[in-house]
């Protein structure tokens, strides 16, 4: 279920990028996709009844059901990278606005190569 | 190849000159009668030639002279190669390709000399003459090609000999009728007779290549014309009408063929040069190809088919 939801999110993000021409909205689309894939990663590592993968005095037996810690680590990295990309994307958005006075890619019309 | 060959060659030249010039004179008479005139005397052609040779002439530079000599030299060399009733001054050199291309030397010389005169009429005439040649030669060459393929020989005298002794139906003109017709039409073109005489058209382009000639140059041109006529008629005679077993038979056939050509031409109007090309590439070319295909694929005509 949760996997389907994440897949849906990715597709929604793609659709957002596909259908909108506003720079900010496209960036939101990208973010939604990233969210989707992050949830997807988590869902892979997760199963019902699993506990946090932290070794404590109470839980160190391998028989205990940890959720996969690696997936969570990956998500952490992915979020960080996503953050960086979003930030950079916003910088570009600012630049586009500064240069063309609009956020609408359709209004730029492709700008001739110099 | 010895001295005698050259002597014979010289004699052939002399004989051909006398014979052909006489015939031309006679034919002037024939044409005149056709046009309801009296016409000049039979030896008028000789008088014209010798008069021209005696007169003063003007020259337009060395190529004007050189071209004339080259033309006459080439043509005379060709005449020497023509087998007359089986006789050859230089035996074995009567290859049809050699003859038809050596003929071109003379034509080239003439064209060169004419164009060298600096008169544009001459150049136009030459252009037309060459175009005319392209028109008649391709169908004719295809027919000749067919003959060579059929008889495995490209020797004029051999092909002539192969037709003899079977009566009139042994002639290639009857064995390969389409080819014969093509050859006769092509001969008209070769001779520059009407309707294929646009390149000398006197009233239109002032006699074309001949426009600047006078005196001995003109005399050369006359002689050249006689020799050329002989070569052209002889080729067709040997290839399609069996040549001649004896010199008399040869001369008789020759006279008939030549006069026949003249009579045809006497009643013809003139083609424009592009019309001539179109004509040759429509009817005679098609006939020549059909004849060629028939011979190559059925063998009909190689052996007697009646």
């Amino acid at each position, binding site marked *: 279920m949760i996997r389907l939801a994440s897949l849906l999110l990715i597709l929604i993000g793609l659709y957002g990028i596909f259908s909108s021409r506003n720079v900010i909205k496209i960036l939101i689309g990208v973010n939604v996709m990233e969210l989707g894939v992050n949830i997807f990663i988590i869902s892979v590592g997760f199963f019902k009844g699993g506990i946090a993968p932290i070794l404590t005095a109470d839980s160190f037996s391998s028989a205990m059901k940890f959720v996969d810690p690696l997936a969570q680590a990956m998500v952490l990295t992915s979020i960080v990278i996503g953050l960086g990309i979003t930030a950079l994307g916003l910088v570009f958005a600012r630049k586009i606005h500064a240069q063309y006075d609009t956020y609408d890619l359709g209004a730029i019309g492709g700008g001739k190569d110099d | 190849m010895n001295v005698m060959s050259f002597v014979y060659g010289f004699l052939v030249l002399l004989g051909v000159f006398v014979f052909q010039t006489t015939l031309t004179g006679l034919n002037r008479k024939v044409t005149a009668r056709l046009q309801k005139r009296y016409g000049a005397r039979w030896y008028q052609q000789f008088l014209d030639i010798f008069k021209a040779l005696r007169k003063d002439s003007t020259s337009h530079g060395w190529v004007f002279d050189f071209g004339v000599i080259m033309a006459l030299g080439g043509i005379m060399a060709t005449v020497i190669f023509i087998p007359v009733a089986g006789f050859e001054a230089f035996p074995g050199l009567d290859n049809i390709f050699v003859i038809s291309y050596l003929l071109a*030397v003379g034509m080239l010389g003439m064209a060169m000399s004419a164009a060298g005169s600096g008169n544009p009429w001459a150049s136009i005439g030459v252009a037309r003459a060459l175009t005319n040649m392209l028109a008649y030669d391709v169908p004719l060459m295809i027919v000749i090609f067919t003959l060579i393929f059929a008889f495995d020989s490209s020797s004029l005298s051999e092909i002539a000999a192969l037709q003899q002794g079977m009566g009139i139906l042994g002639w290639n003109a009857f064995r390969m009728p389409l080819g014969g017709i093509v050859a006769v039409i092509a001969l008209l073109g070769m001779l520059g007779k009407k309707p294929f005489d646009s390149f000398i058209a006197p009233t239109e382009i002032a006699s074309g290549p001949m426009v600047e000639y006078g005196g001995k140059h003109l005399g050369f041109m006359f002689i050249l014309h006689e020799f050329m006529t002989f070569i052209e008629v002889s080729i067709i005679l040997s290839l399609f009408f069996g040549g001649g077993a004896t010199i008399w038979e040869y001369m008789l056939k020759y006279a008939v063929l030549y006069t026949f050509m003249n009579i045809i031409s006497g009643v013809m109007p003139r083609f424009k040069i592009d019309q001539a090309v179109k004509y040759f590439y429509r009817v005679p070319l098609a006939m020549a190809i059909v004849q060629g295909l028939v011979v190559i694929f059925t063998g009909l005509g190689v052996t007697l088919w009646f």
Partner: protein
Amino acid sequence: MNLTIILAVTVVLAVVSFFITRLNKKAGGFLTVIASLFAFVGLFLLKGSIGGEFSIFYFSFKITMVGWYFALIMVLAYSMTSFFNPFWMDKMMYPGSYNFMYLLSMAGTIGMFFAKDFITLFIFWETVVWSSTFIIQLGKSRKASYVYYVVSAIGSMATLFAIMMAYSVSGTFVISEAFAGLSGGAAIAVFFTFILSGLAKIGIFPFHVWLPAAHGNAPHTFSPVLSGGLVKMGAFIAFLSVTAFPAYEIFSGMFKVMGTPFPIYFLMALGAISIIVGTLMAIKQEDAKKLLAYSSVANGGYILIGILMLDQVGFAGGMMHLVNHAVASAAAFLAIAAVAYRTGTTKMSEMGGMIHRMPVTYIVYLVAIISMAGIPPMGGFVSKWLIFQGLADKGMLFLAAAAFFGSIGSFMYVFRPLSAVFLGQTFTRDLKKKEVGFFMMLPMLILTALSILAGVFPNTILRVITEIQASVGISPVTLAENTIVTVNGYLDAFRVFIVFGFGFTIAFVIFIVRRKSKKVELMDTYTSAEFIHTRELLHYSSKFYAPFERLYDKAPDTMKLYKKIAVKIGELGNLTESLFYGHKPEKTVFWVMITGIFVVIIGGVV
């Protein structure tokens, strides 16, 4: 003599000439003369070591009779033309690289003819292609160079394909073994792709478009090499495609036309078409060099037909036509170059009466065109005669018809420059022009002499050809002392020459004994009572055969075909650009999704 030395010296001298030209242009030009003459002499002496095999670097060579023959023709064209180089240095934009490329391409051709394996052959071949491309661009047209490269590339890429395909079957690149084991469809594919570079190089229809462009616009000092030399590289490929690739054996089971397997007959027919197209196009050219270029197309057709016959007579004719055409066409191009050296143009309508200023050049041109048109007593006659005899023997009617058409048509086109450039009225501008110097005259005279010698003593060349014929296992053409004997006729060129001389002498004597004629000015002609004082107006040169040209002026231009293909490729490019590229991410997202859906469907199916 050693091939290694020849190749090494030419390549080294190529580099040296590049630097010397930077110091002194003329000296660099003279170096090309020395280098090419050295190569010519070296090659000539190489005959002793025929049969030898050796390798330089990773290139492997085998000195064969046919390679020697081709290389000698090639280097002859190079060395004769090189005499003109020093005088054109000032007109070149890059004299140094011209000299470098000139010698490099020469080395390339030498290496190519002696290659033992196809990769060596291909490397040298392509080297020649690109180095000559860079020479042609220095001439009058950049487009010409481009066209030349593209057509050559079509050929060489196809040949590379064939080589590789053959290799995947036989596992070797060695020329004599590479085609072993081919059969069926693969054999046909290899045959046609392999010979494509040859067709492109000879200028066979529809690849002939590069000849008028390149020959007509290359620097005047390179056109003779292109036409006299480089075109013959294609003949070598044609030769290999019937000998190394034993086309007659491999296709022996196929449908035959007049005893010739259909694929070979098809190529011969292409040769025949080239003869017709070349002739017709040559007739209507206004530029002397372009005219000669189209005549090369027509002559290429003869060569191809001759070589592909691979028999006793026609093949010998084709091989001999290589020499005759190389010599004649190089001489004709050199003559035109000499005229252009003085007048600065090659357009026939802008010249006239040059015979009175440049008589030697005129004679050179005259002999060259007599040979090209196949009129005795020049070399071209003998080779065309052999080809005719071969065709007559096999009864190939349509090919023969084309050959006759080309032969007679050649009278028409070769006469045009003769009449327009050399004869007629001399233009006022050119009245003070002089003949070219002896150094430039020399190669032209040598070539003229060669043309005549080949026509009078053809057996000298034919003896070499009989050896080639023996080496590829066909019965050599029968030669007596001075005579060439074929099934349906024989030719004694020497006697024809003597008789011609005899006739000429008689005519000359008659001419001399008659009264001397008065020399008059050229303008002193019959003008139908008009008063014309402008020399230029009294010269008939442009649209020489106008009535004849009109008959086919609507004929389609082959170049249009190439342009159409180029447009189509451009359209594909346009499509690519507009479909996939832009500044909005939506296009890419769209395609990613489409591809994704496609993959999912495929996944479901698989």
